[in-house]
């Protein structure tokens, strides 16, 4: 168990290092540097700017400086937003995205698990087929389609929900629903097949023959075992929520990290692009490691060893 944790963490560190290096060197593919896209400054200004941002040193030194900064968790200054540090920008944008994403994830779990269980219990009946049909739609329809269609029906036609910004709790409804659509559908399908597997097991039959009520057997035995595949899905679900937030934040004009990232790409603000990529990669990889370790802990088969 301890060996597993060490292996997982070292793999994560290696990957993170690779991502940071890849990101850094990709930025150098862009000719002319980050300042030539604006109206061309005079050569002296260019030199002064390069000196200030350390861009005149050779690539190797710049790389080492950046890596040193990373370890101190300093992601450098933003190039386009003068005077602001990348760390700052991330610090303001991330909590907003985290709030929307976190609620969406919670919603997916709260709705998806009971829905999947319900579908598994009523297997074959029309309620099962209806739920499965809706969830098939949920995993096929892309997130931007869901978001724009929701925005059109509730915001534009019916005018009952606001469509931009996050000022009131009401503003959260549309973005959260749009973001949670796919994970909910996926979790309910996953839960259904996992629950069907568990319900067919011998120990469930034993519990029933001992006279255990359906309610108790469901909650005490079936759910705990059936939920394991869903736990493994939580890692990829987070990745999905992260990328989905890029789209949702653009559509609903939410000033979170996602829209920050997208606009940094169009603005070609390289330190911000690099910083956001590394931060997001760090977040994803860490969450995946945590989920993997938690799964190994709660898997009942491990305890038997």
């Amino acid at each position, binding site marked *: 168990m301890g060996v597993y944790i060490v292996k997982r963490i070292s*793999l*994560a560190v*290696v*990957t993170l290092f*690779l*991502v940071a290096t*890849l*990101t850094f060197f*990709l*930025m150098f*593919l*862009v*000719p002319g540097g980050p300042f030539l896209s604006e109206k061309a400054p005079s050569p002296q200004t260019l030199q002064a700017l390069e000196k200030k941002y350390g861009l005149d040193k050779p690539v190797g030194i710049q790389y080492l400086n950046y890596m040193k900064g990373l370890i101190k968790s300093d992601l450098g200054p933003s190039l386009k937003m003068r005077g602001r540090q990348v760390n700052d920008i991330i610090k303001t944008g991330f909590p907003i995205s985290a709030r929307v994403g976190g609620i969406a994830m919670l919603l997916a779990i709260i709705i998806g698990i009971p829905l999947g269980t319900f579908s598994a219990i009523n297997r074959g009946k029309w309620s099962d087929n209806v739920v499965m049909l809706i969830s*098939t*739609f949920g*995993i*096929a*329809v*892309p*997130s*931007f*389609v869901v978001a*724009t*269609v929701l*925005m*059109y029906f509730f915001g*534009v036609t019916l005018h009952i929900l606001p469509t931009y910004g996050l000022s009131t709790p009401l503003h959260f409804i549309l973005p959260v629903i749009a973001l949670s659509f796919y994970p909910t559908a996926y979790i309910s399908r996953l839960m259904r*097949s996992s629950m*069907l*597997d568990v319900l067919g097991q011998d120990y469930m039959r034993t519990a029933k023959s001992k006279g255990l009520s359906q309610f108790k057997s469901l909650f005490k035995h079936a759910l705990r075992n059936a939920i394991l595949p869903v736990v493994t899905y939580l890692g990829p679900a987070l*990745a999905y929520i*992260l*990328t989905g937030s*890029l*789209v949702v934040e*653009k*559509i609903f004009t939410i000033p979170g990290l996602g829209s920050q*990232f*997208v606009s940094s*790409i*169009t603005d*070609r603000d390289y330190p911000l*692009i690099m910083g956001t*990529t590394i931060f*997001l*990669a760090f977040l*994803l*990889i860490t969450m*995946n490691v945590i989920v993997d370790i938690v799964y190994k802990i709660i898997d009942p088969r491990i305890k038997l060893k």
Partner: protein
Amino acid sequence: MAQKIIDKKNPLSFHINVSGFDVSDFLPAEESEKQSMVVMRESVNFWKDGARRFRKNTLGMVSLAVIIAIIIFAFIVPLPYPYSYEEQIRGSENLGLMQYSKDELARKETGESVFPHVFGTDSLGRDYMIRIMMGSRISLLVGIIASTIILLIGSTYGAVAGYFGGKVDMIMMRLVDIIYTVPDILIIILLSVTLKYPLKHLAETIPGFNWINTVGVGLISIFVVFSLLYWVGMARIVRSQILTLKEQDFITAAKALGASHSRIIKKHLLTNCIGTLIVTTTLQIPSSIFTESFLSFLGMGVNAPMPSLGSLASQALGGITSYPHRLFLPAITISLIILSFNLLGDGLRDAFDPKLKN
């Protein structure tokens, strides 16, 4: 035969009257007589069996029909279509569904037949239907090409890792683990940003690379990232199949007969995985299409004026109150494409490996 052996005076008696027999009764049975005794169906091969099961699956057949319809829509209908996707018709901007502009109405008065803009036009006067057709074409091409790349790289890698086992397998799977951990969307976005300049430089300096401009850097970076990152899922699946297959006797026999490694992998191992390969590839197509439309929506896909269903949807957001059809048409199309491929993949999996169905 029964008339000859039953005792006529006492039908229920068990005595057999052998005088009624002659030599012809005891000749070996002919093929036709043997066939009449056989109650089995004729044996079918793997493909016919799977096809038969697939035909029974109505949802699968319907989705196959939808996909064929979309392929016709995307590749064949544009050929005789009178408008092209980048042709901006002055005076015909912002038309609704089946609307005619003043100029076109005037031309109709003079007796000229003007093809209607079935889906209207966008703000630059480009016919929307042909743009949706081209967008579907791009989506389908991306899906198929990306899945082919993933199939080729992933199955080769997985087969080699699974077949050789031991240290080779361990190293290869370590690499797979690392690549699996890298967050792919971030790298795609990064690559589409940074590859723009080198590729544009390449397109301008070296002749023969002009297609880079039409296709767009976004698409090329999608393909590059697919080749670098997305094949790992396929590799894992193929490897686990190969691990179970290689213990079987026919592989030992092939080795004993002196078959080379590549022959064993190609002719024996991979051909037995074809069912899994087909299903996994078919299910990879919709996620590739999804990634492409997602990136186009964010503005990182194909270059203008080449349309993509994602970029059409993104551009339609601005006029959503006045021209909602501009949003719904690409949205419905992309959802239909992804849904049909998903259902087709599910149907194929049920048809070729019914043990997996719950």
